[in-house]
């Protein structure tokens, strides 16, 4: 159990000498963007300006699309990658140059990384044996961890005789048996099928109640992030986009990226909406209709001194309702999800998704090709400026 402090952490993978000389010959190209990596003269920048304080026993989830630097950050915390600059503290101890084995951390890998020649018992006992823990204590700890994870009956088996879910439990068991200060998990569920993933997600929540430690969990699955994390760190292109509780990042996304990344289905965006102000009251024009903003929104915009401009309006599909007086759209796709209906509509050339509860709804009246009227509560909409930042 320990707190963690990351101060302005940066990770650069240096260019090889060959690449450096080639670059010099080509001329000065100080910085360019290739896919989502920043390539500079010093090399490929994977993570930068990463500062975060993690409290003792907190469950932090790093989430973001592939290549955003979340796994690199985790590997730097583990000591598997060198930190190019910045400071990493576990508790009060600066651990930038401390070997992984001396950091008192444990890690669960995406690929399980179980030792194939050892039984489940030996896999779990390996780290304790290296610490020269007495045999009786090893046995007690391994059996306790196996009990928690319900793998006692597999202790004598080798990893190849286990299913994917069982292997992942062993990997978790191997990590918790050491009672580490920090437990790192690198996309531990991404190799499992959907059903097992849901089950294991619940198990991890239960596990957290049973073991008192600090968790840092990396995933690209925002459902995992929302359900597991006390706080979520959303990353893109090596930068932190937003840090907040699941509720905060869902209700108050800081920019267009976070708004689009968090929430399923994705938030609807209406671009080039005219924001106007008349006698101190703001209104926004969406798809030809002028919508007056609420008192709270007016205050927020006025406090920031927002001038009339072109904005992007965002509204979550779950915040839309069928309403005769609202906008009209044509249904392109109708997805019946059981308790709710996902309607993909074309509204004046815009793709709009609405999530409608099916209770009391005539589902057959909302099939492909039919027209439908909908509206949304202005209080739940988000306004993003030209720089992509949330104005509210």
């Amino acid at each position, binding site marked *: 159990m320990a707190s963690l402090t990351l101060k302005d952490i940066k990770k650069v993978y240096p260019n090889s000498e060959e690449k450096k000389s080639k670059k010099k010959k080509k001329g000065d190209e100080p910085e360019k963007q290739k896919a989502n990596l920043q390539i500079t003269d010093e090399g490929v920048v994977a993570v930068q300006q990463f500062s975060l304080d993690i409290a003792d026993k907190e469950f932090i989830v790093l989430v973001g699309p592939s290549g955003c630097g979340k796994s690199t950050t985790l590997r730097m915390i583990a000591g598997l990658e060198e930190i190019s600059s910045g400071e990493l503290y576990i508790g009060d101890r600066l651990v930038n140059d401390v070997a992984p*084995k001396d950091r008192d*951390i444990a890690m669960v890998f995406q*690929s399980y*990384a179980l030792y194939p020649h050892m039984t489940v018992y030996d896999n779990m006992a*390996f780290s304790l044996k*290296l610490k020269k823990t007495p045999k009786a204590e090893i046995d007690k700890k391994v059996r306790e961890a196996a009990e928690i994870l319900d793998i006692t009956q597999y202790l004598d088996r080798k*990893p190849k005789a286990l299913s994917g879910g069982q*292997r992942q439990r062993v990997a978790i068991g191997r990590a918790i048996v050491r009672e580490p200060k920090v437990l790192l998990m690198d996309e531990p569920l991404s190799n499992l099928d959907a059903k097992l993933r849901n089950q294991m997600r619940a198990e991890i929540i239960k596990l957290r109640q049973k073991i008192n430690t600090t968790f840092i969990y990396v995933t690209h699955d925002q459902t995992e992030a929302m359900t597991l994390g006390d706080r979520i760190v959303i990353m893109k292109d090596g930068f932190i986009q937003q840090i907040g509780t699941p509720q905060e990042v869902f209700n108050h996304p800081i920019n267009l990226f976070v708004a689009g990344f968090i929430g399923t289905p994705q938030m609807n965006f209406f671009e080039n909406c005219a924001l106007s102000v008349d006698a101190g009251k703001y209104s926004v024009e969406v798809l030809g209709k002028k919508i007056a903003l609420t008192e709270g929104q007016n205050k927020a915009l006025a406090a920031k001194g927002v001038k009339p401009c072109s904005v992007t309006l965002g509204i979550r599909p779950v915040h839309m309702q069928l309403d005769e007086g609202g906008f009209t759209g044509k249904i392109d796709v109708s997805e019946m999800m059981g308790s709710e209906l996902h309607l993909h509509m074309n509204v004046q050339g815009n793709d709009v998704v609405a999530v409608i509860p099916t209770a009391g709804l005539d589902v057959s009246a909302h099939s492909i090709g039919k027209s439908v009227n909908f509206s949304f509560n202005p209080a739940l909409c988000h306004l993003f400026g030209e720089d992509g930042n949330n104005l509210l």
Partner: protein
Amino acid sequence: MSVKAAAKRAPIRLSAGDKVFYTINTIFLALMAIIVIYPLYFIVIASISDPDAVLGGQVILYPVQITMAGFKRILQETSIWRGYLNTIIYTGLTVILSLVVTIPAGWGLSRKTIPGKKFWMIYFIIPMFFGGGLIPFYNVMSSLGLINNIWAIVLPSILSVWNLFMTKTFFETSIPDGLVEAAKIDGAGEYRVFTSLVLPLSKAILAVMALYYAIGQWNSYFNAMIFLQNENMYPLQLVLKEILIASESTMGGTGETILEQYRMANQIKYVSVIVSSVPVLCLYPFVQKYFSQGVMIGSLKG
């Protein structure tokens, strides 16, 4: 369709082109098999056939007038048994030392983080293509005081760069980085990773390397011929060569004796091939299982 009916279902019909392809393939492979197997079979039947029949071209498919005279002649030589013992000692030492050198070197070179990796690669590659030549080699061994010494046979054979690179490739492809990282987080240092993780997962390459080095040393005679003067230190191959030369060169006496020696020399050729090959052939089945065995099953996803 029931399971029984499905089981009885006719196999997928081949097209005319497929049939021609499979037929030509089968004939070609059968011919290749005969080309490889027949010379070995011929040596066996020739070694136990009457030398006259062999010389007369009568031994083609089966032994003619079976005789063990060649084996008797060879096995009654005491030098053969001494040669066997010497070869076993040389081979055993070579295998042990070569594994001690090759496996850690291969592991080291397979790691991305080893300092000066490029330098070490060049260092190992250069002697692969350029050798100093026989006389400098002899001079080096002589300066080291290794003439007529067991180490003159063993030391030059303990590292084959070809085998080293094969080992390096095995480690690169068979031991995932994730496994090593997991061990390091669990508290293992470099030495512990190597002994507790890498070695137990490398039975296949250990077996293959042991076999390659063993066969190389078992069959070698050149270094022994150059560096050994004491006949008591001769390895088996050199002893057999001496016996063969002796049986060919001691021709003298009456015409009948000359003919008899000539016949015997011819048979000894075949017998010596068998005498020197049988132990290696016996060893092969024990290591064969490792050749294609996937030791990593269950370790990673999938």
